[in-house]
């Protein structure tokens, strides 16, 4: 154990990478799935061990190839990214059993092994973004995860999946290139790519070249904003989520945008620091304005969607607005709310998309009009959908309430009580779109089209139940989710310096 422990940061990324390669070599669905399952279940163990080490003894630094930072690439785990690593790994592990039937239903036999290969590559990329302490290395991992997610989306059955994937490819590449331009500016200013090192050198550089730093901040914000689907840059997301294979939608909605949000938080709070990003520049005002727009407009669009997956995708854009609102508030309660919503939203959205994936598996459609009475045919699935839906609205007793509570506190701390009204208003709109689905699913008579639908097989049902239970659990016991978020927020506002 003592020989493995120091190398956990490397293993966190290397194991899924090697898993992906082996999946491609195996070329048959069953062994590839087994390998993907084993790797997915190993990941949260490693992530938990890392987080435990961080809680016990402070940040971990791992030097790739034995080259010391700032020259070599450093993998750095602190409370914030330990939390994100555990989130990504745990969601991946929880939803993996669902994949076997769902992927078997939606993807051709010959492509399934490649599917699992791409999934593991995407997982490696996402974990890599979260774990690396090197700004350029983050770009490489960003592109690894993005390229594999384009492939995963394009594997959808509908031909529109191809268009959605192409649209995402163009926008995602622009986003990643913007990010790398921003990092280029930072490199020119500080001569370093190590995040801690950049943070230390930016203060003196601000006195000399404030304009270049503003340009770097703008490029990074726009680039990462594209990847995390910050409102007006979210256009790729609804199409991508609606047409991707069900399981891919679950995975991406719960992890990909969350990791991009982590990157934004890392840049704003750890690298540029509160002093530059929030005290000197109007980042807070811009981010809060965009967040409010996302919370209201995207929720309203969701009300009028007839495709449930698309509706949930717009709801994701709105929920990302809550998270960025927390970032924009930049105070203890607000940032805690944003961070805890990263976690809670991942859990709730995964539960919702899993339930809808199961509906698609049984009924073959996700069109709201064709789903009347589905609740009577698939009671367990829709019960979880209902719970997670209530979570999305922010009902007390569910995880969603906790995040909104902290956000409202953060808004009050700043004295912006209007924001509290916006949060409540957006929740009411969420009630309308969730309520629409619930009304059709539970209160109407089943149509003959879905007469033969029933709850999905156990491997699909267990992940749904698990995430449904997590939605309630993290609404009651907030020691882990909100506790870690609170401590990370405290560390972030204190800065790396």
């Amino acid at each position, binding site marked *: 154990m003592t020989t493995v422990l120091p190398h956990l940061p490397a293993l966190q990324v290397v194991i899924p990478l090697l898993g992906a390669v082996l999946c491609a070599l195996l070329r048959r669905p069953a062994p590839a799935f087994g390998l993907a399952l084993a790797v997915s279940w190993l990941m949260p163990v490693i992530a938990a061990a890392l987080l435990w080490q961080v809680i016990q003894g402070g940040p971990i630094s791992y030097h790739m190839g034995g080259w010391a930072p700032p020259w070599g690439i450093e993998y750095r785990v602190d409370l914030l990214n330990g939390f994100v690593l555990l989130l990504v790994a745990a969601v991946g592990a929880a939803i993996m059993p669902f994949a076997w039937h769902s992927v078997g239903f939606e993807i051709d036999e010959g492509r399934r092994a490649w599917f699992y290969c791409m999934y593991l590559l995407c997982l490696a990329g996402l974990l890599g973004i979260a774990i690396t302490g090197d700004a*350029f290395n983050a*770009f*490489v991992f960003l*592109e690894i995860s993005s*390229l594999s997610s*384009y*492939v995963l989306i*394009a594997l959808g059955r509908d*031909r*529109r999946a*191809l*268009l959605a*994937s*192409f649209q995402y*490819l*163009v926008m995602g*590449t*622009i986003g*990643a*290139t913007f990010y*790398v*331009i921003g990092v*280029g500016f930072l*490199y*020119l200013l500080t001569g370093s*790519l190590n995040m801690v090192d950049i943070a230390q050198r930016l203060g003196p550089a601000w006195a000399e070249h404030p304009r270049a730093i503003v340009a770097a901040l703008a490029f990074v914000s726009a680039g990462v904003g594209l990847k995390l689907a910050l409102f007006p840059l979210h256009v790729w997301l609804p199409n991508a989520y609606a047409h991707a294979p069900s399981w891919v939608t679950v995975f991406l909605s719960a992890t990909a945008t969350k990791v991009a949000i982590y990157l934004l938080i890392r840049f704003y709070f750890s690298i540029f620091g509160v002093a530059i990003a929030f005290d000197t520049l109007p980042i807070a005002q811009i981010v809060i304005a965009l967040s409010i727009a996302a919370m209201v407009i995207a929720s309203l669009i969701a009300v009028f969607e007839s495709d449930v997956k698309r509706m949930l995708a717009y709801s994701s854009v709105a929920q990302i607005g809550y998270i960025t609102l927390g970032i924009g508030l930049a105070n203890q309660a607000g940032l805690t709310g944003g961070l805890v919503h990263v976690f809670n939203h991942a859990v709730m959205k995964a539960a919702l998309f899993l339930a809808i994936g199961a509906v698609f598996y049984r009924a073959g459609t996700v069109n709201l009009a064709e789903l009347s009475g589905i609740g009577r045919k698939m009671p367990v699935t829709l019960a979880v959908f209902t719970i997670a839906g209530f979570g999305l609205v922010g009902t007390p007793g569910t995880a969603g309430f906790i995040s909104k509570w902290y956000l409202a506190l953060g808004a009050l701390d700043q004295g912006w009580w209007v924001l509290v009204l916006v949060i409540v208003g957006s929740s009411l709109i969420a009630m309308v779109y969730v309520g629409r689905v619930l009304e059709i699913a539970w209160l109407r008579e089943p149509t003959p089209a879905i007469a033969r639908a029933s709850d999905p097989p156990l491997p699909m049902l267990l992940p749904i139940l698990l995430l449904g239970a997590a939605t309630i659990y993290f609404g009651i016991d907030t020691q882990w989710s909100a506790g870690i978020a609170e401590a990370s927020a405290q560390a972030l506002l204190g800065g790396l310096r």
Partner: protein
Amino acid sequence: MQAFRLVVEYYNYFVTIFLMVAGLYVVIARGNMIKKLVGLAIFQTSVYLLYITPGKILGGTAPILDPAFKVYSNPLPHVLILTAIVVGVATLALGLALVARINEAYGSIEEDETFERDREA
């Protein structure tokens, strides 16, 4: 004269910015997916130039240790951009593969035509 000096001194940066804006413009303004990818490639290429340019130190030689030389160019940007080029090539290849599939599925690679065909269907 002053302006001329500026252009000569920052020649590479002017080219970088021109390529950046031109590439981005092509991505936004053209509906043809191949042209979009061409624009995307130009846009990415401008970033390669942005990184490489400051890596060159006037009078510096290739960064291989030798007692005869004291000034070396910075090798790090080249390494970074080598990685970025590989990423760019992978993106371009995947994009072209997607366009080939879209052409088979829709019979067109014009963005508006594909949207129209979905609306008809």
